[in-house]
């Protein structure tokens, strides 16, 4: 069950997270993105081309019940998560590119996510209430716009909101651990290995394909690392919010299974990948001068 209190907390959290994402942006960022559609295209292809395909593949191959399959599909169709920016920072990737990919995928998500969901759900023969999904996505753009407004009004308020948003992204995991897991303990014990395999596999395969794709396009390793993390890390809180606000409470728990488990495991997967990237970076890093400039 998702009680009204938890729904309210969930809504507040997602609001702050999206507000923080908005606060990290300026109109100039969009100008930049549209002037260089190549980078934009790579991001969209990996986010909405590869990830849903991987999700669809996992949902078809793995022996999971239809409700769990819907969860896999939803999380795989999500835009990039704000935590990807943090991991990009720690893995010494291209932070600007990461931010831009997150934002672009969120913006285009309003259009692409319902389309993709309907397409793949049709292929999987499951049902998705697409109007509700669209409404939720549009509503989510409100805090993004407010965040951008805050940044424009006062850079300090914007920067604090940005920091608060990404910090809350991590805190969200804790929220899941204390609220969802105890109540679904029975389900977690009963469910087959396939649910776990999908939850872990989506991130790992996504990162591997994202990296391979970027390298195949001869992008700089730094940008390839960024695209890899950006592709693999989805906006988990958004998936959970969409499910909580769209599905009836009794069904929502099972649909949420993979998005919740994904959100928990992606922290571990991303940390491991970040460590690998950091090591690779250390080996390849050019010696920069010590001075301030």
């Amino acid at each position, binding site marked *: 069950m998702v009680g009204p209190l938890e729904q309210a907390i969930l809504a507040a959290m997602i609001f702050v997270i999206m507000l923080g994402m908005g606060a990290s942006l300026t109109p100039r960022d969009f100008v930049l993105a549209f002037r260089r559609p190549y980078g934009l295209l790579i991001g969209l292809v990996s986010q909405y081309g590869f990830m849903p395909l991987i999700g669809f593949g996992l949902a078809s191959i793995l022996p999971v019940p239809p409700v769990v399959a819907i969860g896999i599909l939803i999380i795989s169709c999500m835009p990039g998560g704000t935590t990807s920016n943090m991991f990009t920072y720690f893995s010494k990737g291209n932070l*600007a590119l990461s931010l831009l990919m997150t934002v672009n995928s969120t913006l285009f998500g309003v259009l692409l996510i319902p389309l993709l969901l309907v397409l793949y759900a049709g292929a999987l023969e499951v049902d998705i209430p697409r109007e509700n999904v669209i409404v939720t996505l549009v509503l989510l753009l409100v805090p993004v716009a407010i965040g951008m407004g805050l940044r424009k009004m006062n*850079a*300090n308020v914007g*920067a*604090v909101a940005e920091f608060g948003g990404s910090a809350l992204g991590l805190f969200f995991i804790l929220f899941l651990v204390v609220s969802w897991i105890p109540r679904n303990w029975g389900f977690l014990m009963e469910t087959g290995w396939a649910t776990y395999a999908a939850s872990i596999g989506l991130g790992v395969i996504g990162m591997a394909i994202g990296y391979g794709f970027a390298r195949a396009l001869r992008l700089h390793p730094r940008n390839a690392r960024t695209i890899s993390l950006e592709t693999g890390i989805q906006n988990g809180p958004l998936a959970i919010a969409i499910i909580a606000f769209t599905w009836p409470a009794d069904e929502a728990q099972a649909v949420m299974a993979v998005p919740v488990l994904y959100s928990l495991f992606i922290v571990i997967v991303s940390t491991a990948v970040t460590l690998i990237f950091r090591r690779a970076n250390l080996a390849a890093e050019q010696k920069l001068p010590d*001075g*301030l*400039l």
Partner: protein
Amino acid sequence: MTTDQRPWTAFYGPAVRKDIDAPRYPTLGDMVAAVAHQYAAKTAFTCCLPNGMNGSLSFAQADEMSDALAVYLREVCGLAQGDRVALQAPNGLSYPVAAFAVLKAGCILVNVNPLYTAEEMARVFADAEPKALIVVDMFADKVREATKGHPIPNIIVTQVAEFLPAAPRGIVRLVQRHWDRSLPPVDFPHIRLPAAIAAGRRARASVAVEEYRAQLTPDDVAVLQYTGGTTGVAKAAMLTHRNLLVNMEQTMEMIEGVEPGAEVALTALPLYHIFAFTVNLMGFWWLGARNVLIPNPRPLSNLKRAFENYRITWMSGVNTLFNGLAQELWFRDTPPRHLKFASAGGMALQTAVAERWVEVTGKPVLEGYGMTETSPVLTFNPLNRVRPGSIGIPVPGTDLRCVDDEGREVALGEPGELAARGPQVMAGFWRRPEETAKVMRDGWLLTGDIGVRDADGYFRIVDRKKDMIIVSGFKVYPNEVEDCIALHPGVAEVGVIGVPDGATGEAVEAHVVLRDPALSAEELRNHCKAHLTAYKVPKRVVVRDALPRSNVGKILRKDIRAEALAGKG
């Protein structure tokens, strides 16, 4: 002096005085106080962090806080006039407060590069014997070791986000402490900067700050500025109040089209560097400009928020900065709209870089020239009368000529060592009369740079005297070869040196960092052959991952040479 000897005065703007000898204020402290009175509540300094977090001080605030800190230094620490105070901080709101306080207290400011190693710091401390040190907490780990042999009785600790509003300051500290782990423990007796200012305010009732500087004369030393300290002995140029005030006026007068009280200046260069100290810190203050301070301009994306959030009208920088910015995508796509022009100093501005900058921003880079020993500006390009590749014309009140080894002026158009005379020339090297004697000849300062003057009085730097390469008796100036190689689109950076050669005495060797990894040494040599006389074409091209640089980003040819020779030996 007649116009005959200073033909360049014909190129001065209408508002520029032909000669400047005495400054408008007796000391820097008087200038700071007078300007603060004029602009009072206007914003003087804004510190802008990479994520856009910021804090500001008004003219009145910076003035009041530096008054209080001056009182703290004199009354609480018990410092006397002429005592040295070392300042070791990156750009931030504490830098101007601390620097102004030291000058107002009648003490001598010792600018120390925060990135110095403990060993380099120790050399400076041993030489300058400071009685107080104002240091940023990030580098506290080096302080204990550096002060072992020469204890400093008063240490004031500041932070990068000093004087920012509480929330952003708290977040910065949180990130520094727990994520970056960049805050070493401060394990020596110290006082925090805000506490020192508070203590100064309490002691202020019984003293008049103006009294400290009333005892000073314009010829008292204001700043000890270390030069060439990366190797060998640390030696400091003694720059007097008059040197610095005059040079500030000389430079600011040459810069036309600025509007007092209306400019927004970007300071990405470290303020402890003499160019930024005189032009950015003092000059922008004098102009009543808002000065946007960048604590760390690397990576260059750290400047993005500053360009977005502030209407930057003027910036100063070095070749490395302009080169880097002109290659950043975000900067190319949305160049600053309000920029009037940029000024370059500190090192030679490569023609290719200047051209790329104009192409991106549509605004010129005005190149100037100077050195630590001359506070630092000697020449500047007047706006609208810029000559590409030229360092411009001498600033008002300055004599500059090209001399041979005997100190005789060479014929017009012939290369010779630049010798300078003017009110900005230092009082000498601190406690090193023998070093002073080496560079001063009959009242002229020998710069060590080879230059050429044209009939109008525009100067061009050919090269450093000691970097000159002699190939079979022909003089080759590395700058010319570097400029040529830098024009090749596949090259990111280049340093050219001379190495011993059995056949030609010396041979030209180019060390390059490639932007295009496929570019071969042969292609580069062919590129040079198309533009240069045969003896100037590098005999060897060495491809490297990086070139050694100084703390301000200058490519260090002497280090390249040392590495090249060690590699062969």
